[in-house]
């Protein structure tokens, strides 16, 4: 073991992760940053901008966690990962959070040694076709060639859907989403299938986005959310409650711009507990009372995040639908801070 410590850096190995027994929070405090696994480039979720800094709701979530745990949203290092690598990287402590639009499934939760901390985005797999095909519903896709990328539940949902409806299809499966898009553009397939959010993002990369139609059907449940490694409950709670804080803030009407003022003068007990002027939510998590305030100051509440990266303020223009708050007809619901 000692030999490795000396040998490995000598060969140029960068030892990113270190022994995890100390607990993730202590480890990252010691290092001064946390490592966040993101996608290799999916607009709206995590994609590098022209200066190489990561933009998107997944990336901002990690910034919120960094703000909560380390006091500053800048103390994050991003690591782009393919689906294949993603879980291994998390299992072996190379990254501290996986925030990479991965679907929460039973198998992943139970057999891969990871824990999902919650749901950041309710997605579902959909279809995109060329408008000129005249197809209006996924039920008309019998016999179609479908381009998908390997490495997620996409292939399985696709086959389930076509089987359920007694339709035939030809899967054309690529390793990378760039290649799926190239093949679809070249006319290899009639249909491009992936999570709907992904379809919106990929459609932007096509020469004439308007020529392509995203069909209304959603054929699967794809709850996307951040995951951490099993066995560190303290860290799990911090990540989980960062997510709840973002959602809770929207429900309480706390925004990036009004949080400062609210902290000073509000008498609403829920808000007072949120901003830490009442109760000991922070201490329970092993943090200071201001933890949630920092998260909102850093990235805004969930609604702000959504509109900025995915919704009306973004190029994707995805409607909120399922991703509204529970009291507005959506599914986002944060347990109370109490």
């Amino acid at each position, binding site marked *: 073991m000692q030999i490795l410590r000396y040998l490995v850096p000598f060969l140029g190995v960068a030892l990113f992760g270190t022994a995890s027994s100390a607990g993730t929070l202590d480890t990252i405090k010691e290092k001064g940053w946390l490592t966040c696994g993101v996608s290799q480039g999916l607009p709206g979720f995590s994609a590098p901008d022209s200066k190489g800094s990561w933009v998107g709701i997944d990336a901002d979530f990690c910034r919120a966690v960094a703000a909560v745990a380390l006091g500053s949203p800048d103390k994050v290092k991003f690591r782009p990962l393919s689906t294949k690598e993603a879980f291994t990287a998390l299992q*072996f402590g190379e990254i501290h959070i996986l925030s990479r639009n991965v679907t929460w499934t039973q198998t992943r939760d139970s057999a891969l040694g990871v824990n999902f901390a919650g749901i950041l985005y309710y997605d579902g797999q959909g279809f995109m076709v060329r408008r000129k095909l005249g197809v209006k519903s996924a039920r008309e896709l019998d*016999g179609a060639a479908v381009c998908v990328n390997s490495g997620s539940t996409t292939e399985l949902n696709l086959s389930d859907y076509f089987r359920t409806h007694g339709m035939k299809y030809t899967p*054309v499966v*690529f390793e990378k989403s760039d290649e799926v898009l190239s*093949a679809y553009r070249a006319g290899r397939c009639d249909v491009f299938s992936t999570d709907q959010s992904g379809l919106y993002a990929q459609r932007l990369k096509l020469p004439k986005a308007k020529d392509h139609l995203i069909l209304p059907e959603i054929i699967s449940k794809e709850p996307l959310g951040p995951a951490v490694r099993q066995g560190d409950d303290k860290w799990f709670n911090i990540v989980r409650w960062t997510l709840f804080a973002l959602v809770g803030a929207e429900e309480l009407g706390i925004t990036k711009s009004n949080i400062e003022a609210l902290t000073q003068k509000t008498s609403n007990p829920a808000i007072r507990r949120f901003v830490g002027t009442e109760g000991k939510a922070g201490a329970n998590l092993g943090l200071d009372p201001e933890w949630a305030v920092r998260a909102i100051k850093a990235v805004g509440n969930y609604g702000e995040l959504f509109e900025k990266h995915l919704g009306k303020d973004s190029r994707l223009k995805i409607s909120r639908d399922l991703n509204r708050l529970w009291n507005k007809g959506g599914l986002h619901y944060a347990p109370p801070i109490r």
Partner: protein
Amino acid sequence: MVAVAVVIAGAVWLFGNTLDNLANRGIASGFSFLKSTAGFGISTSLIDFSEASSIGRAFWVGLLNTLLVSAISVVLATILGFAIGIARFSKNWLLGRVATVYVETLRNIPLLLQIFFWYFAVLRALPGPRQSYDLAGWFFLNNRGFYIPKLEIIDGGGWVLLGAVVMAFLAFWQCRHKGISRSCAGLAVLLFISLLAVGSVSVPALTGFNFTGGTVLSPELVALVIALSSYTAAFIAEIVRAGVQSVPRGQIEAADALSLPDKDRMRFVVIPQALRVIVPLLTNQYLNLTKNSSLAAAIAFPDLVSVFAGTVLNITGQAIEIIGITMAVYLTISLTIAFSMNIFNRTTAMRGLSS
């Protein structure tokens, strides 16, 4: 001795780490995943496969596809490679030059780039299914693939057909042995008639999005085969050239003195002796080709790597078992090719050369 001890200690250390890691992480292990339901579809399959089949069957689909691509490409690469290698000796200056340029171009560009080129360039050049190129109403070419008629055999007809093929083969071999080749044509006709009796031909036809009926050679398969065989052919051509140059001058002079025509000199004197040099090197090329067929993963052809080390690995996450099986399979294929080429070398290429 010290070195051996260090190596063993290292291996034990790695193995121990692995076991610890697997235990600590709660990652499933073992091979039971092979029996579970696949749940995904595969576009090209030589055996019946549906989403309800097992993962083990998906493995076989991938393996058979790997073997299919490799076998077709080996044959094409050999033919093309020999043609180009021999063309480099052509009396026609232009032909010789073109052959040289071919070799120098193809072998100095990465195969993966060539695969992308063929795949995307060919896809873009071809029309959609509704504007397919139509050859006599039997063959259709579009960006979904090359559609060809398929022979469908009635139940039990397969055995009749097999019998007919075996009979025809035996008869043909007998004819050839006795030097009567003309009457063999009659046998071919006989075989054809027996085919008509037991089979029917399914012709592709446009329905909905795509063609149904017939068989389709997918663009992935076609691009992969073209890229693999044209790339390997460049190397084979060089090997053939080296082989031909290794044949002593005296052999060529002897053939000339006997006034053997040029092509007979090549066929009966030069090539058989060149094989002595060619075959071992050719074996390496066949091995490389088979291994290179794994680049299928880059263009969505469902070979072993793409199906098994790709989709199945993503679904089950059991990296050790899956990568292990994949490597073991390639190793087995490699050893089998090497072994059979060795036998071929001893029985055929080295004929008469060991006293």
